[in-house]
C-alpha cells in the first residue's frame, strides 16, 4: 500500500515508439486531467543510450560516446513498468507539461534534460539507468 509511481522513480516504457526505453517520472497525475482522464505521468527518458567507453578511447572519442539523447513524454500508467530503481535528477523546473505544447519549447527542454542526464552519466552513478535493456 505504498505509493510507488512517484517522481524520481525509474520506469520502463512498454508501448509506443519508445518501447523498451528507460525513463524517470518527473511528475505524476494520479487522477488524470481534463484532457487525459486516466492516471498518467510526465516522463523524461533516454532515446539513445550512451555507447560503451573503453580505456583506449581518446578524450574526444569519450565525449562523443557519452552522449545521451532524451525524450519527454506524457505516458499512461498502463504503458509503464515501474522498477525498484530511482534516479535523483532534478528535472522539475525544466520538464513541464507546458514544455510539450510547442516544438521549440520541447526541444529546449530536451536539451536541458540531455545535459543533466549526461553529467549524471559521467559521474558513473545510476549505471543501470544508462544501460540499454536487452530483450
Amino acid at each position: 500500500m505504498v505509493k510507488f509511481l512517484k517522481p524520481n522513480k525509474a520506469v520502463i516504457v512498454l508501448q509506443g515508439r519508445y518501447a523498451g526505453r528507460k525513463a524517470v517520472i518527473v511528475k505524476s497525475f494520479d487522477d488524470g486531467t481534463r484532457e487525459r482522464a486516466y492516471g498518467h505521468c510526465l516522463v523524461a527518458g533516454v532515446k539513445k543510450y550512451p555507447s560503451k567507453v573503453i580505456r583506449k578511447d581518446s578524450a574526444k572519442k569519450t565525449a562523443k560516446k557519452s552522449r545521451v539523447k532524451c525524450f519527454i513524454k506524457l505516458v499512461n500508467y498502463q504503458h509503464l513498468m515501474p522498477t525498484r530503481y530511482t534516479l535523483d535528477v532534478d528535472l522539475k523546473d525544466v520538464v513541464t507539461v507546458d514544455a510539450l505544447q510547442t516544438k521549440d519549447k520541447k526541444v529546449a527542454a530536451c536539451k536541458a534534460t540531455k545535459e543533466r542526464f549526461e553529467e549524471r552519466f559521467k559521474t558513473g552513478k545510476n549505471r543501470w539507468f544508462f544501460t540499454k535493456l536487452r530483450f
Partner: protein
Amino acid sequence: MVAAKKTKKTHESINNRLALVMKSGKYTLGYKTVLKSLRTNKGKLIIIANNCPPLRKSEIEYYAMLSKVGVHHYNGNNVDLGTACGKYFRVCCLSIIEPGDSDIIKSLPGDN
C-alpha cells in the same frame, strides 16, 4: 503427511474467508484490474492461482513488492479460484480492496 493434512484445513479456511470477502467486502477480479489496484494503492491482498503464466505471476509479484502488498499463491488453478469466488468463470488473479467482515488480510500474509 502432516503437511498435507494441514494444507487441506487451511485451504478450506482460505475458501471460507474468500467467500466472506465476496459477500461483504470489495474486490476486483482479473489481471488488468489487479495491476490497477496496485498502482492506485487500493489493493490490500493479491491472490494468484497456481496455473497463472510465470511471467504474469512475476509481474504481479514485482508490483506487489513495490507497493508492499502481500501476495498469496492460491492452492488451486484458475478454475478453482473462480469457484472459490462463487463465480462461473475462471479467475487467475484477484485483488482484495476491502476485506469487509473477513480477517483474510490479518491471517494470510504470514504464510504467503
